[in-house]
């Protein structure tokens, strides 16, 4: 395994939210029984899938845009170190301060120290996956600092003491009746006549947040993009709450994964077209905030950029898996995934759920810490088709499965079975013998068309819900050879 050979650290355990507490199949089993969750997810993903398909189909050069996005990301990753150093130079030249964080622990320490230096005990937050990944809110809370999520869906999750279940729509697993209940229970002084009308819910959240925006002295954000040549950070959003955080407080701290850098200003042209159509199914997102360093008398007067590794360099070292770093967090792959649609995001155990999460989380933590995730896919390929930067997610999933298998130091029963089967399938003589062994199935079936539904494991995992046909008396190749004679001489 290349990652181990090079000794590049992965994201540390015990901090942040990249590891679940149980394997995917176990967590999924419980989620699948939650009918309300299934209904909410089915409705939401179907709606957003349709919207995305519509606005993507109307772009005549989508295939070229997608290829441009892929090529830009690949070229950027090939010289990531240079682009990051250029970004640092440009941010610094414009009055910002750049901090390098090896992992979640370092990033949390840096942000906590910076907030403490301002004397504030409360920060407002722009929706950010990086800060969810490192568990920043918990780290701040441990230091006596309250982090207030201001993205509507993140607010719902935070007030409900829940966890996000989607990259873009963290509260996708909740319907509006459930959201009304959370607001009525948790927002102080909320209108007792609050209904589940989306407009009324948004107004209740706005009232709750407005006061906090105005009193906030420190904001924490993530970044969608960072332009190396100009030192510009970019956040795209729908609500405008991010814009409030980015402009009102005195101090702004941005935590950004190192893979978010793009070399040139004009690269935004490609990504700002790909992202909104793929994520919210909009032609253009309502708010695009761009800032470089600080501007006297306008906006935050102190700006800190925290560049986060947390396992990304280890991902970059894997020549198959590194494509996962191209992700622009649009979540189109989640919305089309038949597995995600049914299990929801919590089953993945990481803040990055769905197909991209199944390739990103195990690489950030090391495959053995998330070994069930690469198998949480039927390899149907719908994710690859919709990915705006053409990440071949199915191929990476298959690669990570192999990394997991090859990391085992002891022979598992599964490995023994696959090795024996490989031997048989590599030798026509042994293969005919193995095929003959399916006669056992006919013995078990005792003349019935299907095998018994109560076979021992692992066959039971199939037969619990699906019949298995009784094997035939004779294989096709046997029958053909009997009828036509061996074609060895001819073929």
């Amino acid at each position, binding site marked *: 395994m290349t990652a181990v050979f090079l000794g590049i650290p992965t994201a540390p355990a015990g901090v942040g939210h990249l590891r679940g507490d149980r394997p*995917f*199949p176990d967590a*999924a*089993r419980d989620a*699948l029984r939650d009918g309300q969750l299934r209904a909410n997810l089915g409705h939401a993903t179907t709606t957003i899938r349709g919207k995305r398909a519509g606005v993507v189909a109307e772009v005549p050069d989508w295939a070229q845009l997608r290829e441009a996005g892929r090529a830009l990301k690949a070229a950027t990753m090939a010289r990531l170190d240079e682009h990051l150093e250029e970004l640092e130079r440009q941010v610094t030249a414009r009055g910002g301060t750049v901090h390098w964080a090896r992992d979640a622990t370092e990033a949390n320490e840096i942000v906590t120290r910076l907030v403490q230096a301002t004397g504030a005990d409360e920060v407002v937050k722009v929706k950010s996956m990086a800060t969810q990944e490192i568990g920043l809110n918990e780290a701040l809370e441990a230091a006596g600092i309250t982090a207030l999520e201001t993205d509507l869906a993140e607010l719902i999750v935070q007030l409900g003491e829940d966890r996000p279940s989607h990259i873009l729509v963290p509260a996708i697993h909740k319907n509006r009746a459930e959201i009304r209940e959370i607001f009525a229970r948790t927002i102080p002084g909320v209108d007792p006549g609050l209904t589940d009308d989306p407009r009324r819910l948004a107004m209740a959240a706005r009232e709750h947040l407005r006061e906090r925006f105005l009193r906030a002295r420190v904001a924490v954000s993530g970044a969608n993009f960072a332009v190396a040549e100009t030192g510009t950070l970019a956040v795209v959003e729908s609500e405008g709450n991010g814009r409030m955080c980015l402009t009102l407080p005195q101090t702004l701290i941005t935590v950004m994964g190192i893979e978010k850098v793009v070399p040139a200003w004009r690269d935004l042209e490609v990504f700002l077209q790909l992202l909104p159509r793929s994520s919210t199914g909009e032609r253009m997102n309502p708010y695009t905030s761009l800032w470089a360093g600080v501007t006297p008398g306008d906006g935050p007067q102190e700006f800190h950029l925290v560049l986060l590794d947390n396992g990304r360099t280890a991902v970059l070292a894997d020549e198959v898996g590194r494509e996962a770093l191209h992700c622009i967090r649009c979540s189109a792959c989640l919305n089309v995934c*038949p*597995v995600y649609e*049914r*299990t929801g995001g919590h089953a993945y155990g990481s803040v990055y759920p769905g197909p991209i999460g199944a390739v990103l989380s195990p690489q950030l933590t090391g495959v053995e810490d998330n070994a069930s995730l690469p*198998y*949480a*896919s*039927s*390899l*149907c*390929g*719908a994710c*690859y*088709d919709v990915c705006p930067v053409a990440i071949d997610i199915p191929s990476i999933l*298959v690669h990570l*499965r*192999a990394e997991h*298998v*090859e990391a085992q130091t002891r022979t598992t029963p599964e490995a023994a079975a*696959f*090795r024996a*089967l*490989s*031997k048989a*399938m*590599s030798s*026509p003589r042994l*293969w005919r013998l193995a095929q003959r062994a*399916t006669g056992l199935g006919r013995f078990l079936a005792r003349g019935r*068309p299907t095998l018994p*539904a109560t076979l021992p494991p692992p066959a039971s*995992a*199939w037969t*619990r*819900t*699906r*019949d*298995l*046909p009784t*094997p*035939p*008396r*004779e*294989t*096709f*190749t046997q*029958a*053909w*050879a009997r*009828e*036509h004679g061996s*074609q*060895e001489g*001819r*073929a």
Partner: protein
Amino acid sequence: MRVALFATCLVDTMVPQVAHATATLLQRLGHEVVVPPGQSCCGQMHVNTGYRREAVPIVANHVRAFAGALSSGVEAVVVPSGSCVASIHHQQAAVARRAGEHGLADEAEALAARTYELSQFLVDVLGVTDVGAYYPHRVTHHPTCHSLRMLRVGDRPLQLLRAVRGLELVELPGAESCCGFGGTFAVKNADTSTAMLTDKMANVLATSAEVCTAGDASCLMHIGGGLSRLRSGTRTVHLAEILASTEESVTPQQGTRPSPSRPTTPTASA
């Protein structure tokens, strides 16, 4: 044309009637069919479960089994399975190359270039959509993920089905959603797989079709296994079996019925 048939391990062992039907169809269209006896598996299950090293000798066996056929005038290898052809095209050479077996990788690539999924072979290589079939049933078609998204077979199976006399083709709602098979996924994530299967079956049953067809015996074994467990009465039949059927010999074999050893020319049984 002289064509070699790769039955695939699953069809050869579990549903041989699909390979018989493929051979019957190709012969009826005037082609000579050979079945290389050394064939076993393409290696897909090993690769997709993480055993890419163990897949290499399987790929080598596959290349060996068909090498003779190619050197004795066979122009194409036809396979009644989209996912096995996708593996032959997209995985075989890659796993060989990764293992340092460059010669094998080159041979696998050359073989892949001559290897076709059945509907692609009929429509693209032979240029036929009306294969002279007769199948008087109400049928819905599940496109299967790897045929759809890795091979891009598009509407070729539907073109073939529309030309079948007596066949009433009904559109499957949510057709492009995976049925939940996914090879070992069906066992490793049995609950999620079953949830996907349930939705696929609901859509199949909503069409009131007698038959659900597809170009992959594996997906059909999954969907058919679920329909059979529910005692639904809707059966799964491979595309090759429908296209092989004529007025003289209709073959509505159900996937869950034990397949008796059958002569290459199907006998009328409906």
